[in-house]
């Protein structure tokens, strides 16, 4: 069966520090991968998606970037965090462009 791993679960970082969140998927190949952000009391906003290695699409302009160095690895990064980057970050995968997505357990990021 397929599983998705996301870490760390919780992270507290100072403003201006770098960020690296990692997500890996097991049990499938060539998944579509996604990064979502969930702000407090709000729905989910798609940040990035990837349909293959090295292929990244950004949905909103922001202080973050994403990379896909391997087929089942998706990384969310920032060179310098802002206070507004605080939130709950969720990685997800899907088999195809028109199928359901499966989510990781999320990372709670607090920028102080």
């Amino acid at each position, binding site marked *: 069966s397929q599983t998705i791993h*996301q870490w760390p679960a919780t992270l507290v970082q100072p403003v201006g520090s770098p960020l690296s969140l990692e997500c890996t998927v097991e049990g499938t190949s060539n998944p*579509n991968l*996604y990064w979502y952000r969930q702000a407090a009391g*709000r*729905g*989910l906003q*798609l940040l990035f*998606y990837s*349909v293959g290695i090295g292929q990244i699409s950004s*949905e909103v302009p922001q202080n973050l970037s994403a990379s896909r160095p391997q087929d089942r690895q998706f990384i969310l990064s920032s060179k310098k965090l802002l206070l507004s980057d605080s939130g709950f970050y*969720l990685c*997800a995968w*899907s088999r195809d*462009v*028109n*199928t*359901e*997505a*499966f*989510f*990781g*357990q*999320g990372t*709670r990021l607090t920028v102080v």
Partner: protein
Amino acid sequence: AQSVTQPDIHITVSEGASLELRCNYSYGATPYLFWYVQSPGQGLQLLLKYFSGDTLVQGIKGFEAEFKRSQSSFNLRKPSVHWSDAAEYFCAGLSGGYNKLIFGAGTRLAVHP
């Protein structure tokens, strides 16, 4: 533009009572529709999905949802709520040709004993 709307931000029901969570969509074509549930501090778990065919779909944990094209709705229902159903519920839509889910703002469900 495609959108998914959940009109109710917060709902409280008594344990054992029936539940209906509302979801409305705005899409050019019939979208693929989903309901997810999120417990505090956790990721999202898929409850059920609608792609085509029967308009009443069954999901996990005793949930069902009915797709109504005439009302652009995809409401989630459960005949008898358990205390463990307290969580946040998200409706989401996926339009053919696009590879991203559009989520509603969520409905937080509280269950009174």
